[in-house]
């Protein structure tokens, strides 16, 4: 018989090993839980679950199934802020139990302060085994800190005082190293404390204190690594003795589950305990989810006959599954479709699909990218939609509206806008939706409206206006809920951008308060992120002069439609500033004459107005540059105040000079200087970027548009070369060569092959040719020695580079 059983076990284990796994699980290599980079309604870091889940999670919040956004997003427990939140919830739950125990005679805050904010060392010195006079001193300090201390002293419950002392000792030992060895645990002190706990446990008859003492005994054993004792203490004091509605029971069980998790043979049992903890102890849910392994899932299922446990097992397996969890979801639905935990699992699955389907489409401002994986994901969305829709149409289901709403959302993700609308219509007839679900349906309807069309026409804009007015009203009426309008502005911006409506896209993006977080990975804004600042930045970085001109024309219109007014109302646009930008964009495109024409429309006073940031060179004369000191060389030139039009006019004038003109060489040297100063090496923004300071440019160099001459100094070098060619004076030739050598020297920092980090091969710049010429031909010139210093380091650099 025994041999037969062994044989049977062998066959079963073989079958388990080779049992085919679900295809989604087997091949999926997606992000870990919590690592999703994008959620449509929560661009940025996913800090608000209600955004990520729309309003579908409302019931879960209300019923305490999830407490924090991270609960639903499957954020790892080791995330510090999340962990802190969970621990805080535990502290609150424990404090409430203490309030009950003390029959409300002590306030919640006083107990919380006592348990969690009183320094253990101070506490112990006040009540501990110190000499009387010292103790009195500390007691006075504590009494000043909390009225509660007075109460404890009057209470005349020695076991309570002893317990408090003991728990404070453990708190101290948990936070401090062994002073002898520097190791994390002071085992000697823990042993002594363990003896104290045992004595007190034997003495006290107070069940509340007994359970807490037993819990402290479990903690001590955990800290000392005495794992078998943890289970022993749990079984003796908690198992079928402690009321399961108390947090202390579940905390103790978590320690037991941890011990069980350490042994492969008890892993199935451990998983079941983690499930129970997850279902009953909200503050331990993140830990339970993280500790649940699921590796012995069938065995865990066999260990329980309770539907709730089974549902929990499927729930945790599904939540922890970074791939598709359709099987778990189907099983959870089969067990109890009305359970909030089933809804949680469905939302988790929806969240995964948001990431898989929406993220590639909507992240950044990139064009529509259809990945091969995405087809599969959309197919999966269809499968789930079918499952949910079937459920939503069953009369026996209590929350039909929930299932129908997520079906509509899945249809939307799949691009089936008509289906979405049909489902939304059906739901209106059903009437089982609560107010949050109705709002959710409205949101899906607006999304469908935006996405279900090509270019947004003038006709559609009227409807858009109505929709956004609704969203505004909703936001005003529900200030505690997330600003839905801002999210829809993002979607709208994406849609406009996709349809080539750049200006509308820019306005929508910049009007949304989510713009900053949405774009921060790629384009951090170096100015105060008001909508206006963002818009200027956006136009400057991504737009062209024609876009700025369109905006100016739009503003000049005598009559504007409601939707245009709605879009523009967030901005405080100054026409002169826009003209400044338009001219700057033209100047950057090598159209200086056109730039001057645009700037002619700007009154002279604007350029010297302090509010027009960076419109004027305030300190430096831009036509001056020194081979020794480099850009501006302010000490060698007079302080100058030049506006953009003045600089550009002068550039235009000097470019017109004939080669035979006696001043031609000097002009071209100055032109070289101005281009040098306007380059990255000159740290100038005037011709290339808008609203930046030197420091901001230096910090964000990778983001500056890579335009001709900006990094490679080609424009400056071209001008210096021309000056060298036409110069008659030896000194002019020498300075031209010196500046050319300096340019060569500078650009060693910017070799595209090196990616700013140095040259990759030894063949790029064998010698600094201009400097060699300078040395040979103008040996006695004053620039040779000074430039030599610069180029010597350059030579050294070439010699020793990797």
């Amino acid at each position, binding site marked *: 018989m025994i041999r037969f059983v062994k044989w049977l076990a062998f066959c079963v284990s073989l079958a388990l090993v080779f049992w085919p796994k679900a295809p989604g699980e087997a091949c999926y290599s997606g992000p870990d839980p919590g690592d999703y980079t994008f959620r449509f309604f929560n661009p940025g870091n996913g800090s608000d679950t209600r955004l990520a889940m729309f309003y579908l999670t409302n019931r879960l919040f209300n019923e305490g199934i999830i407490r924090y956004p991270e609960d639903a997003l499957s954020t790892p427990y080791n995330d510090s802020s999340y962990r802190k939140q969970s621990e805080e919830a535990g502290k609150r739950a424990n404090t409430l139990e203490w309030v009950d125990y003390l029959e409300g005679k002590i306030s919640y805050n006083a107990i919380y302060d006592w348990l969690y904010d009183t320094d253990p*060392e101070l506490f112990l010195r006040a009540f501990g085994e110190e000499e009387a006079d010292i103790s009195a001193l500390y007691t006075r300090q504590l009494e000043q800190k909390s009225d509660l201390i007075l109460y404890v002293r009057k209470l005349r419950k020695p076991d309570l005082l002893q317990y408090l002392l003991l728990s404070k*000792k453990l708190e101290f*030992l948990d936070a*401090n190293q*062994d*002073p002898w060895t520097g190791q994390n645990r002071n085992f000697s*002190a823990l*042993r002594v404390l363990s003896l104290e706990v045992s004595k007190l446990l034997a003495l006290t008859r107070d069940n509340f204190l007994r359970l807490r003492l037993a819990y402290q005994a479990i903690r001590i054993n955990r800290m000392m690594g005495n794992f078998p004792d943890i289970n022993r203490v749990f079984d003796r004091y908690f198992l079928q003795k402690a009321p399961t509605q108390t947090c202390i029971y579940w905390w103790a069980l978590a320690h037991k589950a941890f011990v069980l998790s350490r042994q492969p043979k008890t892993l199935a049992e451990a998983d079941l305990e983690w499930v129970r903890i997850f279902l009953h102890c909200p503050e331990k849910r993140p830990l339970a989810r993280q500790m649940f392994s699921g590796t012995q899932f069938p065995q865990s299922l066999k260990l329980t006959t309770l539907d709730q446990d089974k549902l929990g097992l499927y729930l945790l397996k599904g939540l922890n599954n970074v791939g598709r969890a359709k099987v778990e979801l189907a099983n959870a639905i089969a067990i109890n479709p009305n359970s909030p935990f089933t809804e949680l699992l469905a939302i988790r699955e929806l969240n995964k699909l948001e990431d898989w389907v929406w993220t590639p489409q909507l992240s950044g401002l990139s064009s529509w990218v259809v990945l091969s994986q995405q087809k599969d994901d959309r197919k999966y969305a269809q499968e789930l939609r079918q499952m949910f829709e079937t459920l939503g149409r069953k009369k026996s289901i209590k929350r039909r509206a929930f299932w129908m709403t997520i079906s509509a959302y899945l249809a939307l993700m799949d691009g089936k806008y008509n289906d979405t609308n049909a489902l939304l219509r059906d739901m209106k007839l059903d009437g089982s939706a609560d107010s949050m679900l109705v709002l959710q349906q409205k949101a899906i309807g607006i999304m469908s409206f935006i996405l279900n069309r090509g270019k947004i026409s003038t006709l559609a804009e009227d409807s858009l206006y109505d929709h956004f007015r609704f969203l505004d009203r909703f936001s005003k009426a529900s200030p505690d809920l997330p600003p839905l309008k801002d999210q829809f502005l993002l979607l709208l911006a994406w849609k406009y951008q996709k349809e080539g409506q750049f200006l509308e896209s820019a306005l929508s993006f910049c009007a949304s308060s989510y713009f900053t977080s949405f774009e921060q990975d790629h384009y951090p804004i170096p100015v105060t992120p008001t909508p206006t600042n963002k818009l200027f930045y956006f136009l400057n970085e991504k737009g062209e002069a024609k876009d700025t001109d369109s905006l100016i024309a739009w503003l000049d219109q005598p009559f504007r439609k409601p939707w245009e007014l709605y879009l523009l109302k967030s901005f405080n646009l100054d026409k002169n500033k826009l003209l400044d930008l338009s001219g700057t964009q033209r100047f950057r495109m090598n159209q200086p004459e056109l730039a001057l024409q645009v700037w002619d429309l700007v009154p002279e006073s604007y350029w010297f107005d302090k509010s027009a940031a960076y419109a004027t060179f305030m300190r430096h004369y831009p036509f001056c540059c020194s081979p020794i000191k480099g850009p501006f060389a302010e000490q060698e030139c007079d302080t100058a105040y030049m506006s953009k039009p003045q600089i550009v006019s002068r550039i235009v004038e000097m470019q017109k000079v004939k080669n035979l003109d006696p001043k031609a060489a000097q002009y071209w040297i100055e032109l070289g200087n101005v281009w040098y100063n306007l380059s990255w090496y000159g740290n100038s923004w005037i011709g290339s970027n808008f609203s930046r300071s030197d420091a901001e440019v230096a910090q964000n160099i990778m983001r500056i548009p890579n335009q001709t001459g900006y990094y490679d100094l080609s424009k400056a070098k071209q001008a210096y070369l021309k000056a060298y060619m036409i110069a008659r004076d030896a000194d002019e030739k020498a300075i031209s060569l010196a500046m050319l050598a300096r340019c060569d020297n500078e650009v060693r920092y910017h070799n595209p092959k090196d990616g700013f980090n140095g040259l990759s091969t030894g063949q790029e710049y064998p010698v600094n040719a201009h400097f060699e010429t300078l040395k040979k031909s103008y040996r006695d010139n004053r620039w040779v020695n000074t430039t030599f210093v610069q180029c010597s380091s350059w030579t050294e650099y070439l010699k020793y580079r990797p």
Partner: protein
Amino acid sequence: MINLPFSSYSKRKKAVLLLLIVIGIVSGFFAFSKKTKPDYVRVGAYYWRTQLEAEPATVSWMKLIGGERVYLRLFDVDWHPIHTANPLGEIRFNRYEESDQQFVKTWGQQTVPVVFLTNRLFTYLPLTEVENLADKVLTKIKQTCRHEDWGDTLVLFPYQELQFDCDWTVSTRDKYFRFLEVVRNKSGVVISSTLRLSQIRDRLLMGVPPVDRLMLMVYNLEPVQESDVENSILNTSLMASYLKKLKPYPVPVDLALPMFQWGAVFTESRFKGIIREPKPELWGFAIPEGRSGWYQVQEDTAIGRLFIRKGDRIRLEIPQLNQIKEAVRLARPLLSKDTLNVAFFHLSPACLNRFSHDKIREVVGLLR
């Protein structure tokens, strides 16, 4: 007539008597010619500071008194309500500090590490944890007496003796003695312990520590906190009463003598604190009272962390040379007769200023 062997019996009796007399005379000779001076007197001093420093004046003083040993306090162990035994005030050697190097170079070979254990520690520490404490203390001594830096191990103090200082009482005796036993068994070096006069007087009650040697501290006989005490550091008349009719101690006893001084500050009769290494010649804030050793504070002042108010009184306690000599005479019968260690407390510039090497040599001369 029976010839009783009376005469032969009487002769034997006489012979036995004679023998007894001879034995008595011989033993009496040996008894009365008992050694009164030790074979060898080894002079040393305690180093009770937290920074290692061998000032030239101190080194010279040690040489002049023929000092061979430095009893170096490594660390204290006190009771902590949570950590239980807690090491404090550990001496740390910094190999990049010139004074530390100088100390080790000068006295490293002749250092006896000393660990001070508070009585409070043994009051609260469970007996079951004493062995563990001994292990920790030995490990820490080893760690402190060598220096490890970037893989190099430098032996700073290659000790052959360890000394433990504890003012144990009847209630803590068993734990402290257990501690000494464990340390003695595990260390493999000579273990010595300090001994107070009260502990030697109440020997039956206090027991004899299980160590190789004892260091009798003849100072701090009375509580410094009491205002009616004349001199808490050294009181020879009290000492004489402690040492009256004492039997020889079963463990070799060495002698520790005070060189330190302090000022005890009182507000009315309430003890306020101690001024360590006082310099009364610089006290512009206080004037001497008629009664010997007392000063009256005339204006508020602060010395170290001690805030002294006008009206407070300071009892300046300075052991005098003649008192120290008297203490030596009183203690001499109890001291080891083979090799005697004499240690002065303690090596600090202020103490050395008061006790020149000549004075110390005079004191040591009494023992030789």
